[in-house]
């Protein structure tokens, strides 16, 4: 048996180098993923273009609110569907197991992915604001744009927490996909139809408390709507969803699909 060691014992890597390496890889992967691109950018743009083509819809609500609603749908698609599916498929393929046997803290692995999601949410919000301004022929003050981006970050965190809870509570990739889509449709419909009052006052009240309803309310405030009881409820509801579902998502998450 050889008793000598020809190389020094490996040193612990720095947090900065590890996080930088993860960020670079996750950004590259996000840029190469067609699914991410479609979910993050195309969903809100498609929504705004459809509304723009149909002039009657312009009377339906203020342009700023419609743009906010469009961003909400984009955040929902990226956070609830894109993020949860990506995590579920990487978990099923063993990508997380491979990362976890390196001397990297697990919070860095997830932190990098969440940072990439937040950055792409901000990019999507900026693109949606620009496209929305063109479609609806409106301009916004810088304070409104900054407010909109702030609400987008808050909304993105909330939908990522919902996505994290889904992927934590369901082990199979297929189940995450199915439940994510179902949730998306339910929240989309309550967001669009519920908030209009078409489905009655009861559903309208419920819709205000849903993630999409609460977020839309915050966008409305950014665009000059008077502060109301609904706005107070929304500013409580959005962080509350994030905290509760984020806790569930972290507490019950399993890195291993088995």
């Amino acid at each position: 048996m050889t008793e000598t060691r020809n190389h020094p014992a490996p040193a612990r890597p720095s947090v900065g180098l590890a996080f930088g390496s993860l960020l670079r890889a996750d950004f590259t992967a996000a840029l190469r993923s067609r699914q991410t691109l479609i979910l993050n950018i195309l969903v809100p743009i498609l929504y705004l273009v459809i509304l723009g083509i149909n002039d009657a819809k312009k009377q339906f609500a203020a342009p700023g609110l419609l743009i906010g609603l469009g961003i909400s749908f984009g955040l929902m698609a990226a956070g609830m569907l894109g993020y949860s599916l990506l995590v579920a498929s990487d978990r099923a393929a063993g990508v997380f197991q491979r990362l976890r046997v390196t001397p990297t803290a697990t919070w860095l692995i997830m932190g990098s992915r969440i940072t990439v999601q937040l950055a792409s949410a901000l990019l999507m919000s900026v693109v949606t604001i620009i496209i929305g301004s063109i479609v609806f022929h409106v301009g916004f003050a810088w304070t409104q744009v900054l407010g909109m981006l702030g609400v987008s970050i808050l909304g993105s965190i909330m939908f990522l927490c919902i996505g994290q809870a889904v992927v934590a509570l369901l082990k199979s990739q297929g189940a995450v996909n199915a439940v994510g889509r179902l949730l998306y449709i339910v929240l989309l419909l309550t967001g669009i139809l519920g908030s209009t009052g078409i489905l009655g006052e009861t559903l309208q009240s419920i819709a205000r408390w849903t993630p999409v309803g609460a977020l839309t309310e915050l966008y409305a405030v950014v665009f000059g709507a008077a502060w109301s009881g609904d706005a107070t409820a929304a500013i409580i509801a959005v962080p509350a969803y994030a905290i509760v579902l984020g806790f569930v998502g972290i507490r019950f998450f399993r890195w291993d699909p088995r």
Partner: protein
Amino acid sequence: MSVLQVDGLVVRYGGRTAVDGLSFAIDSGEIFGLLGPNGAGKTSTLSVIEGLQPPTAGTVLVDGEDVTHAPLAAKSKLGVQLQSSSFQAELTIEQLTRLYAGLYGLRLDRDGIRDRLERMGLDGERAQPFKKLSGGQQQRFSLLVSTLPHPVLMLLDEPTQGLDPQSRRQLWTEIEALRGEGGSILLTTHSMEEAQAVCDRIAIIDHGRLLATGTPAGIVAEYREDPRVRRLAHGEPTLEDVFIGLTGSAIRD
């Protein structure tokens, strides 16, 4: 000092005990084989050493670092090749090499990365994602990632499974080179021939318990007169005869 010290390791999943008081140690520069039928507790044992599974009881020290209390320090001394794992599908193996180098604390420039890939015969595939590589190339790339930090201890979970003889031989040449640099290796395998050929010492385990440990030749000599082994042997007992004699001939899933 041993590079790996496993003492009284117990792993339970609910009511099922996968590892039941296992103890063994690996010295510097040693190739140690962990043998056992399916469900014997090999992968559970490796999972604890890798830091993927907390032990129910017992201690595991990697070069003096406790995997439970100082998991990142212990992991920084390990190179791991998992039985089934994958890499991000969107990244090329060049990008993956940069990523994993960073995770092990190495700053590799493009030349450094290409040099590593070239040494594994993968330079021509550097723009390919992991999934597009052949089985042998995938194993070599996994080995490249595992050896990036010059680990004190390599953990190889069935490293040659599914490889053709040429790829297997090449992989063992790489592993021997690593040992030549002073690294130790813990491997699991179902191939008795491989264990006999490459391992300095082996441990046979079943139902999470240690049944025998020693050099392959020493174990064969120790059990050659055991009636369970004699019943199976056609002529001189082999390591496979001893293995089946000790663990039984019932098929495991």
